[in-house]
């Protein structure tokens, strides 16, 4: 929180800096939800909710007029709506990955960022789920997707990857929600205990499920958390793998590729971390959390961004290799067309943002520079949006028969839905950071030096990593 401490960040410093105590952590985090609403928050909330209204307005118009308001045409049956869907699902990866996978691997640095990464996941998945719902032609019969027993014995088609998608994303959302909520319980109890108004007392009282912080409770809680983490981990891998089968199981050159599942998962982690980074940097600055989300956290995340960026880059090159190696002329054409065809601009935006820019993190100085990582995290997400655009649109616009090739360009409504979805996302996120503890207090306390049984007193270094 103070300038003098900022200068002494070092790789060797503990996870949480500024000589925090249990109570200072509690104060720091809880006070954000308890203090008066700030002007900045109101301003941001106003902006975000206006954009959210744009989303709802656009959806209303879409339902009224039909999907023709988008730029879709005959070869390109999926456009920005599905690009946005895959983009948001991808972003929704980081939360559970940070919470569950890093938890299982005992990466304790995760504690400062896991709470809002999880929240981000939930909100991203909500944004994602908007799109498959509204992109259909007849939204009023969208319930045909559900396996509802009916007198006609009509079932959805279990061979269709779109149905797998529906289950995969649905499951992921449910488990992520449970996981996030379970993690929140001790902190909700803290808020309840600190509550000064009746409403807060009642609401936090209900949602903290009678948590008292007893030894038994902690024992059960930690086991449940571990189990949920174990349950979530395969989901992190499965959800985007399944999303990728929408494309991989099709026959369209540029989609019909076995590399898609791991490639999509890597891309999802990549974009998810970038989004966590963007948000963390803002929250850290606005709410003065520099001691809790330290440079070490940021640097670790940058490393992951760089690694996953290279995995994605490897996939890009491998696609080209296979296109050549397979000897399939259609596939070869699809990839040459990606890089040098009508949509080459999109392809090269993608390559620049996803493969070239993350390479700057080889430099320790840049890896630890807040402005650099902020810009890089945004460009990564731009790049990842374009990756989905490139995959979906360029492949469809030029497939097997040249006679049906056509160019796709978005309309106002394509753009308004994308912007509107950000509005929805930020609205939810702002509500979250205003009303719930955005850092997992109980977990951060666990990684404080004081929590270590071998921790000495002031001045004595404890084992914190």
């Amino acid at each position: 929180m103070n300038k003098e401490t900022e200068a002494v960040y070092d790789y060797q410093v503990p996870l949480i800096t500024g000589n925090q105590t249990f109570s200072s952590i509690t104060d720091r985090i809880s006070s954000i939800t308890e203090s008066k609403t700030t002007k900045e928050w109101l301003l941001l909330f106003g902006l975000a909710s206006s954009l959210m209204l744009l989303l709802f307005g656009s959806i209303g118009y879409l339902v009224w007029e039909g999907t023709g308001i988008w730029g879709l045409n005959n070869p390109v049956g999926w456009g920005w709506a599905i690009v946005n869907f895959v983009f948001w699902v991808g972003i929704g990866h980081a939360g559970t990955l940070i919470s569950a996978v890093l938890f299982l691997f005992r990466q304790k640095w995760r504690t400062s960022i896991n709470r809002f990464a999880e929240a981000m996941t939930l909100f991203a998945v909500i944004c994602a789920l908007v799109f498959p719902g509204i992109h259909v032609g007849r939204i009023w019969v969208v319930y045909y997707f559900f396996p509802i027993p009916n007198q006609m014995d009509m079932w959805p088609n279990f061979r269709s990857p779109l149905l797998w998608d529906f289950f995969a994303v649905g499951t992921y959302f449910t488990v992520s929600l449970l996981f996030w909520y379970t993690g929140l319980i001790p902190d909700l109890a803290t808020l309840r205990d600190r509550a000064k108004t009746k409403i807060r007392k009642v609401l936090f009282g209900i949602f903290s499920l009678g948590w008292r912080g007893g030894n038994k409770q902690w024992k059960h809680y930690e086991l449940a958390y571990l189990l949920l983490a174990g349950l979530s981990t395969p989901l992190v891998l499965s959800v985007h793998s399944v999303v990728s089968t929408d494309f991989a199981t099709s026959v369209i050159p540029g989609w019909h590729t076995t590399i898609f599942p791991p490639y999509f998962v890597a891309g999802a982690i990549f974009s998810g971390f970038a989004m966590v980074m963007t948000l963390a940097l803002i929250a850290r600055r606005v709410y003065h959390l520099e001691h809790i989300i330290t440079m070490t956290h940021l640097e670790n995340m940058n490393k992951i961004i760089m690694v996953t960026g290279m995995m994605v880059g490897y996939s890009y090159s491998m696609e080209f290799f296979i296109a050549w190696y397979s000897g399939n002329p259609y596939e070869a054409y699809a990839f040459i067309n990606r890089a040098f065809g009508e949509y080459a601009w999109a392809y090269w935006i993608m390559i620049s943002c996803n493969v070239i820019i993350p390479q700057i993190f080889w430099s320790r100085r840049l890896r630890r520079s807040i402005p650099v990582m902020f810009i890089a995290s945004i460009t990564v997400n731009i790049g990842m949006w374009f990756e989905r655009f490139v995959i979906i649109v360029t492949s469809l616009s030029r497939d097997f028969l040249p006679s049906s090739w056509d160019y796709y360009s978005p309309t106002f409504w394509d753009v308004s839905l994308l912007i509107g979805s950000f509005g929805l996302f930020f609205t939810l996120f702002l509500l979250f950071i205003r009303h719930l503890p955005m850092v997992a207090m109980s977990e951060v306390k666990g990684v404080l030096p004081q929590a270590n049984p071998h921790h000495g007193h002031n001045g004595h270094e404890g084992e914190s990593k």
Partner: protein
Amino acid sequence: MKEMQKNNGKEYWRSLDQIADTPEFRSFLEREFPENASEMTNPVTRRNFLGLMGASIAFAGLVSCRKPVQKIVPYVKAPEDMIPGIPKYYASTATLGSHAYGVLVESHGGRPTKIEGNEKHPSSLGKTNAFLQAEVLNVYDPDRAKSVSNEGTDAQWSDFVAFWKEKHSQFTESRGEGLAVISGEFSSPTLHRLYETFKSVFPKASWVIDEPVSYKNVYQGLETATGKRVRAKHHFDKAKVVLSIDNDFLGLEQESITGNKGFAKGRKVETEKDEMNRLYIVESSFSVTGSMSDHRKRLSQNQIERFVRQIASALGVLTNASENVVDPAWVNALVKDLKKNPGKSIVVAGHRQTAATHSIVFAINESLSNNGNTVTYHSDPYLVHDGDSIADVIKNASKLDTVIVLGSNPVYNSTAGQNFGEAYKKIKNRITLSLYKDETAALSTWHIHQAHFLESWGDAVAVDGTISTIQPLIQPLYNGKTNTEVLNLITSAEDKDCHDILNETWQDILKTKTLAKNWRRILHDGVHAENKSLITVKADGQAINNLVKSSDISATSLSKDNLEIVFYPSAKTYDGRYVNNGWLQEAPDPVTKISWDNAALISPKTAEELGVKTRDLVFINVGGKELEIVAHVLPGQADYVISLEVGMGRKDYGRIADGAGFNVNTLKPSDSFSVTGARITPTGRTYVLANTQDHSSMENRPLIREATLEEYKKDPEFAPNMVKHPPLKSLWEEYPYTEGYQWGMAIDLNTCSGCNACVIACQSENNVPIVGKEQVEKGREMHWMRMDRYFSGDLDNPEMVYQPVACQHCENAPCEQVCPVQATLHDKEGLNVMTYNRCVGTRYCSNNCPYKVRRFNFFNYTKDYPETIKMVQNPDVTVRFRGVMEKCTYCTQRIQAAKIGAKNEGRTLVDGEVVTACQQACPADAIVFGNINDPESKVTKVKQQNRNYAMLGELNVKPRTTYLAKLRNPNPEIVKQTETVS
């Protein structure tokens, strides 16, 4: 009252009714109440109510027998032979200028919904072209003129009758002084009889023929050459070598249906041992006929005319050897080929060519013994193709009292320098009969709304003299009048029923006073078969020579500053008459693939020199006139030749026509289809063209497989062997499809000319909506059957190939696997069926379709259909709502109807009983459909041919539609020539 006084001097009232029977009173009655409702002015008693009901039933009965009844009354009790849901077919005849096409019209509950060819008619032989298919939409066009109008206000037919009675007596006295009639070309016994009567009643009146796509030159050339008034019928089926001189006989020439049918017959190849015909063509811009050619030369119109003389000299028909327009070696090879096949070759020239050219072509055919073999000549006493000059009408406009325009549109057709519109306005009484309130109607004092041919009685003569009848399928929707009725009124001042007028003619033709039985049979068949008029004609060498000499031509060297403009009939509007037809407007032009527009076609080389690109707006200047039009670069176009499509660019015509394309008539000379001395300057602006196919190269993909006949003979299995792929395994357990009917289709690319008939036929049969230019530009056209067109070879002089593509009904359909709600599935007969009710509209199926044949309803395209357009919908096919996917069903409704019929009779279907709409329309018989599980069926046999291949079969989708590879049959001598040159 005024009238009575005039006619009979002093007049006494016999009754009040008689006074009441004035036009004013009648019109009051008719406006107040529907016609015939006047009985109801009596106090309604139960008794006369029942009486009326009884009459209704009686009338209803009459409707079904196609008797000329006057009233449309809904069925109260169904007539005996009318089964709801079972359509009936009636023979009639459609005309296009002087040509007649026999048609069979499908009628659902008294409304015509679909047109097919009449097998008994020699010009259609059971087949149709795109125009005929689209005619049914014109009947229901809500933009048609709906009432008589006088000086712009609605009037009654009786008003006009009264008006004309007065005029008639005036003109009878003056013997027609100051009277002129303007009509199109026609050949019809009844119209001809009235025409003769007109000439005798009004000998001083003039009769002008205004036909933008005129066959005058053809008829005149033949008349000069033979000394007789004859029409030529071409038997392409008997020809081994065809030379087409700018004749688009597979596309837009009037013989296109028989042209396609005959040519396809001569081109049909079943095994590598078969022979096929060879087509040479010289033309200015690419036509569908050019796409079928084995050798094609791009020549300007000027060069074509000289080429004809070159080849005539080479054949020894003309002695005055002219210069060589085309490489003499090429011409010699062609001449040798022609001479090798005496009586088995055919030379045809297009309607754009001069009369001199047509007379030379006659002589050439005679010298090759083709006359009487591949070309037969028929006298046609009913043909009227020539009349007084329109220039005289313009010159004497202020002296003219009355001009009557019969179904033609001279104001719009007015060519460069004529300005007919201005002259027309000077004429005192301007009477127009037309389907639409067109440009001429807008300037007329009287406009009479015409009845569509499906609402009319009439007759017409085919090229071989066969007379066919036109009978109405429906009461005129807006009580329009036919040109027969109007012409009869004009000549006789009697307002007679069309059927009665027709009767008078046919009493002469059949030489009987009672038409009864014979007439019923003729109406049933649609043709009067006994009337063939084959005659033998001989060339009059002297006359031909004189004509050739008198129309001597000098070479014009074209350059970018001296361009030639060629005017060609439109595949959308013909000469402008179909301009308000949405099906035709939206159907992409067969060559350019432009929908909803016309453009100036320019060759790539000329475009480069001029600095013009596709979609640039340019100014064309010629003869002091200027036209702003969009340019379109078309490979295969002759250099320095600009082709302009006529018939577009209308204002205040109708909701389809308005704003589509450019009116090019302002540049067109009045007596020719081409003009030189044109210049092009870019405007610097661009224009949006809705082109359904942006990409014209096949990218070396084996989609359309093609070889020369020689290569085919060497390697008969070239088509299936063109793609090598690993063994195909399915992920799923495959359904065997071995029992019952298994539907399949084969399309012979060697005979398909790309004429678009199937596209419109499918649209008509399957209620495919039109979506408008903006949506087509976005790539959302809905055609279930599309015609893919690719170019190959040299950019300047490429070959063009066509491939009709509709749903391939893959057994292993990729669309079915991805649909999340099972809205698209296979039935046991191998049909890929769509359940519209179940479709959610994810568009996943369309994405995963390798052929991209699925069509999505992005909007509710059918929501704003006017009531009349709803009537043209096929009741057997669901009209689709927004948000659902649709595609070709193999005409499942026709399969079902046939199956039900067979089941009722306790038998199985016979091969050929189920005919899809595209197959039925296809004049080349390129599409074969049937049960592939029946080893004896035609489709099975065709699929066993060695040219059969499955497009994208390597994807293991197992398409039920397969293609027969295309063949070309180039002259080995010319092939050798080009090889040595290159």
